[in-house]
């Protein structure tokens, strides 16, 4: 089971160690050396590769979903009116 832990600097020895770092890896939060170490395990382990692939697709889906929520034109107009009333000239 994957857990959320801090990086204790210990070498990645097994699947558990690699999966503990999975989200840090996907979020770009690992040092280059640490990233190489985790990726090395993941690419050689079918189970971890599958887990990595799943979480990566999940995070990409989240990222893609953000485009569905935007500020409305009404809000933009209201905001510009408020800022101009506050003194914004440009």
């Amino acid at each position: 089971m994957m857990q959320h832990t801090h990086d204790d600097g210990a070498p990645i020895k097994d699947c558990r160690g690699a999966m503990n770092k999975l989200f840090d890896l996907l979020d770009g939060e690992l040092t280059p050396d640490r990233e190489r170490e985790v990726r090395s395990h993941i690419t050689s382990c079918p189970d971890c590769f599958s887990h990595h692939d799943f979480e990566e697709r999940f995070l990409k889906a989240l990222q893609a979903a953000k485009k569905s929520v935007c500020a409305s034109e009404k809000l933009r107009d209201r905001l510009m009116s408020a800022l101009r009333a506050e003194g914004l000239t440009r």
Partner: protein
Amino acid sequence: MTEELAPATDEHAEFSALTLTALDDVYRFARSLTRDEADAEDVVQETYLRAFRSWKTFQPGTDVRRWLFTIARNVFLRSRERGQREVTLDDDGAEAVDAAQSKEGWVRRGLDPLLARTDLAPAIQQALEDIPDTFRSAVVLVDLEDQSYEDAAQVLGIPVGTVRSRLFRGRKLLQEKLALHAQDLGLIPPPGPDRSDA
């Protein structure tokens, strides 16, 4: 707010150029805080007015979105203090996360076909609204708004380790919500009585 902090006229264009391009991002973050369109718009407007009045305090070269997110969160918390909006802050959620993790196999089977669909955004937005506030804020900042753990920690006023923990929990809860959506669509059966259901 003191007038001397407001930008000089020649700084207005800079304010507009830097902050207004982040309007969608600030609105999304405000929506994640308030879970209400009208309340989010109020938070956004107040955020930008405060940002304008305080523009001289913005440090050039730093992340303007992080600055705006921080102001938005403070505006939201202030409005909550005034009782304009009651939102339950649930930083625990441990039981729900444990339950989600115990069904990890079922969740993955449910999300596999779902993640291939192109119409997933509404379900993700609904799932985001359904998870506790504290987890949602971390997920929105990092997963939707590309903030680093360190930046999210600054915006939320919490340690980096707490951001990491909330992200993990929030993502697991989101995945379970989406698996339930897949179940509703008939893509997977309900989880079996054995919660391990690997």
